[in-house]
């Protein structure tokens, strides 16, 4: 095998991207736990950890740029680097969404919509990200399509959850006797809940992006990219 140090750098990039994904998934799980358990300490752990993810993202970005500038990769190597370059952006955004969940958990001090199963949506989207990264690691094109299909169900789930929250708001009895604090509290709860649902839905979207870039990497097929 020729170009050994180049091959080693490509392998190192793959390992680093996988490491970043493990870190991001860990933060995402903690964010969901913080939200579900109202655990402020956990929430701060996620929020404070975002710097680490951002730094890792910048390091990996420059790893990709160095490979492009210094090694002039072509063909499958080029697609691997181009895909990795895009995937780390999705991972970084997922890290931001985990931070959002941490922040919502600090703000929310009571269970408002027990009928909306946040945990179920979170589990599904986390699993999609996990599956997308496994597809990237194994270069599994078939799995990429499966992940894209799963996102439709997540979108439906999120839409129904949002409807539940909005309908509840409409039906909520607010009259002249309702005090201002209660109205404000209600508004805050509703918007936080809608944002939580939206953020988890976006985690699913990022999982699909990762799958789409992986499919491009493996088969030069841009079918799933929008």
């Amino acid at each position, binding site marked *: *095998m*020729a*170009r050994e140090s*180049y*091959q080693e750098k490509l392998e190192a990039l793959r390992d680093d991207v996988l490491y970043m994904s493990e870190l991001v998934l860990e933060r995402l799980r903690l964010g969901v736990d913080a939200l579900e358990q109202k655990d402020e300490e956990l929430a701060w752990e996620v929020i404070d950890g975002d710097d680490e993810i951002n730094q890792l993202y910048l390091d990996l970005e420059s790893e990709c740029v160095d490979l492009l500038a210094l090694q*002039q*990769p*072509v*063909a*499958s*190597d*080029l*697609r691997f680097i181009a895909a990795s370059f895009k995937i780390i952006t999705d991972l970084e955004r997922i890290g931001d969404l985990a931070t959002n969940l941490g922040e919502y958990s600090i703000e929310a001090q009571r269970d408002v919509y027990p009928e909306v199963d946040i945990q179920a949506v979170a589990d599904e989207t986390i699993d999609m990200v996990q599956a997308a990264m496994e597809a990237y690691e194994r270069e599994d094109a078939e799995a990429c399509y499966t992940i894209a299909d799963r996102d439709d169900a997540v979108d439906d789930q999120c839409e129904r959850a949002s409807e539940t929250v909005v309908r509840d708001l409409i039906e909520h009895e607010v009259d002249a006797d309702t005090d201002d604090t209660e109205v404000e509290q209600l508004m805050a709860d509703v918007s936080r809940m809608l944002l939580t649902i939206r953020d988890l839905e976006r985690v699913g979207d990022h999982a699909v992006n990762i799958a789409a870039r992986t499919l491009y990497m493996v088969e*030069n097929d841009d079918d799933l990219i929008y």
Partner: protein
Amino acid sequence: MTSNENRATDEPAASDGGFAAGETKAGDPDQTEAPLIETNVTADVDDDDGGASFGTTIIESRGLDVFYGDDQALQDVNLEIPENQVTAIIGPSGCGKSTFLRCINRMNDLVDVARVEGELRLNGKNVYDDDVDPVALRRKIGMVFQHPNPFPKSIYDNVAYGLEIQDKDVDTDAVVEESLKRAALWDEVKDRLDESALDLSGGQQQRLCIARAIAVDPEVILMDEPASALDPIATSQIEDLIEELAEEYTVVIVTHNMQQAARISDMTAVFLTGGELVEYDATDQIFENPASQRVEDYITGKFG
């Protein structure tokens, strides 16, 4: 010649011994008989990969075999080179890429032990037919080599030389100026046309050789590693020039520098060991997603 039996149906009327025997149709029915290489070149291409149409074929090889004594340097090469585009030929040392280039203007005639079988057509006319004059052929197909090889004469005489031996009734001053301009050298030499060409820098000498090649108004310019002996600045000038030349001429370039092939060519042919054309396609396709695993391994450096 081995492929005469193929010619009954598609040989264009080319009995005048010239080269302007009508354009070869890109959609030759025989093309489907050459599945040995990975190629997407078909007649009606404007493929969905965003590649431009491959255009009208000007040079076409059919079952081309070349032997140097007992060694086979090219094996059954079938390739259609489009007009007014840059076609790059890449591959490892000894793969036959320069041999192929030299078949196009019959430079291999000068090698005693070389034997060519099959066909190499220019505008549909086999250049190895008995009635083809190789000297006339080389007027239509200019060549630029790895090391600049100007004559030990003045800059002016270098460019005018081809015109003089052709005894053409032309305004030599005007052709020299025009050729030097097209070769992007005029501004640098216009005040010293009578100085020796050997006083020019390497990059300037190479552009002078290009000016000399285009002065006789060829249809095709063959380039064998034209920038490999030049520094990066001179190399970029040659690369820019190649792109401009392709507006008027067909350029076929052999290069060891894969990035150069990727930068400047429209089509890329990959020859691998044993004189085999393994893949031929639009350049972006070759460098982003080659069909052949062997080509993939070669261009990514995993070869061998």
